């Protein structure tokens, strides 16, 4: 399998400047990150506020370029100015705040903007606009002004805008932060569908632990470094360690842990509701205290 994203000793420092534009200091937001994402993978990035997730994400479509080290997107070095176009075509990004993303004055125009920029023929642009708005449940708002949408509606339009560009890799920076529970599920379903149908590589940044239980791999960031990596089960069985990094585990896992502390025999790393229910009910049918380990 090809590498979709690869970073080597990535370092990024924000520069602080005085009024005249002279650099008066720097602060390191990414501190030596090595990440390797294969084509078609679903990768999640977790980490506390200010740990460097968005800064990292912005390197994947060359909004930021490394202070030191290298980022390759689909084999292209993002530092090379002549690759900028190709990099942006390969990796589409949904920003943390949709206000930073929405540019058109009408929803469908906004969504069509990306493919138009890529030189997609007009007929196909409209087809893509329609499909992607449908995918996020916003087709009936196609003629509305994006500025007059609710927070969650804006976020859906922003996602549609990236989907319409059909990039090989989609980077989503907290795409569900403003969505209702059903909307959150729909976005994740859309993402899964893109993976299955179009083999899109997905990089998801989120603070909702429940959303990453299906990821192929999770990276945990802390102060600009990757401090944990592994499958969801590996990561979420380390409750105490995650807490040190200001993170958490899915509510199902918390409940499993709580029951274990109260003496029920429950394995570590339970991630899904059905798993836990199954586990509890097997103890019930045994109908006695043999399942207890405390």
């Amino acid at each position, binding site marked *: 399998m090809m590498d979709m994203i690869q970073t080597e000793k990535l370092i990024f420092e*924000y520069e602080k400047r005085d009024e005249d534009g002279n650099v008066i200091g720097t602060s390191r937001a990414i501190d030596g990150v090595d990440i390797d994402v294969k084509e078609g993978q679903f990768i999640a990035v977790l*980490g*506390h*506020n*200010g*740990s460097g997730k*968005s800064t990292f994400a912005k390197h994947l479509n060359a909004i930021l370029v490394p202070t030191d080290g290298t980022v390759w997107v689909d084999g292209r070095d993002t530092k090379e100015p002549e690759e900028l176009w190709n990099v942006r075509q390969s990796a589409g990004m949904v920003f*943390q*705040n949709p*206000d930073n993303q929405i540019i058109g004055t009408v929803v469908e125009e906004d969504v069509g903007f990306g493919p138009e920029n890529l030189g997609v023929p007009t007929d196909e642009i409209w087809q893509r606009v329609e499909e992607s708005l449908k995918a996020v449940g916003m087709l009936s708002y196609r003629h*509305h*002004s994006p500025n*007059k*949408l*609710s*927070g*969650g*509606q804006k*976020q*859906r339009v922003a996602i549609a805008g990236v989907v319409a560009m059909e990039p090989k890799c989609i980077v989503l920076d*907290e795409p569900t*932060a*403003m*969505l*209702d*529970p*059903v*909307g*959150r599920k729909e976005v994740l379903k859309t993402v899964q569908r893109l993976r299955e149908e179009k083999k899109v590589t997905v990089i998801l940044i989120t*603070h909702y*632990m*429940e959303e990453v239980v299906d990821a192929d791999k999770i990276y945990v960031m802390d102060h600009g470094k990757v401090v944990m990596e592994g499958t969801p089960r590996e990561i979420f069985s380390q409750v*105490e360690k995650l*807490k*040190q990094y*200001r*993170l*958490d585990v*899915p*509510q*199902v896992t*918390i*409940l499993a842990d*709580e*029951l274990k*502390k*109260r*003496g*029920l025999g429950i394995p570590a790393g339970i991630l899904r*509701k*059905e798993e*836990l*229910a199954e586990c*509890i*009910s097997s*103890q*019930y049918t045994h109908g006695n*205290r043999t399942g*207890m380990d405390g």
Partner: protein
Amino acid sequence: MSIRLEHLNYIYSPNTAYEKHALKDICLEIPAGEFVGVIGHTGSGKSTLIQHFNGLIKATDGKLFYNGENIYEPGYNMKNLRNEVGLVFQYPEHQLFEIDVMSDVCFGPKNQGLSPEECEKRALEALRLVGLKEKYYKASPFELSGGQKRRAAIAGVLAMRPKVLVLDEPTAGLDPKGRDDILDQVAYLHKQTGMTVILVSHSMEDIARYADRIIVMNHGEVMYNDRPKNVFAHYRELEKAGLAAPQVTYIMHDLKERGIPVDIGVTTVSEAADEIMRALGTEISENEDMTGDGMLDADAMGGDTSDAGATGDGTPDADAAAVGRASGADTADSKNMEKKR
């Protein structure tokens, strides 16, 4: 002392092609001192609703009484209303505009006519409450990460010491610990000062954990207005309205379907753990007091309520947070006890 809405309607861009009847005949009362949760699908009217509470949006039709006075009467003191009802916007970017974080947080108190010393004192207190590190006090809001901006915006409103605190999705973008800490702090202030709290959120888990009552919005109308247990009992209707029950509630339903006699009205992790242990017949004792103690222990171990026992993270806010956390656990426990009875 309350907020009361009578037949309130709001229409965006009336008489245009984009006319939107965002609030339809809303009748509500929020008594002083309550902790109210507001949930609803995206576009259901939550933000529109709460922006009426401090007069930011004026109803197209209907009345809004604050402490018994109709705020739409000519001569009503709007400035006073804005001093008492603090609103944290859904997007912190809409609220942060000063050159640095400190000036931003001082903005509210300054507007209230407080002395510079008092402003600064309150700002420091608020910044500590939200756990923003000192090194950011002089940073421009634009240099902050998403979650740091959110904290600054919340601090700006807390510094005004509002009587009513309205939070529009305050935890969107916060890391899990930040989310728990800030909501625990809010719960603590609520308990200590009797501050009314109105919390808009898309996290059913957070709402279940903190709210005394839930208002459910659906296409501009109030769908339910009831205690959490009663609201989440309608989980199928909630799903049709874009919502859900807390995750543990689904587990309880699943267990019940598998023939385990659990109470499906459970909405928080510690309640669920108790209930599952009870149903499995592994209770330590029938004695009420003992069950109560057991529960406190479990919570201190870092269950769903508050991270009470979690390791300090060495940040300057750790102390302040610890106070709030301990009391947060308290609140949640008293709530659990109440529900048990």
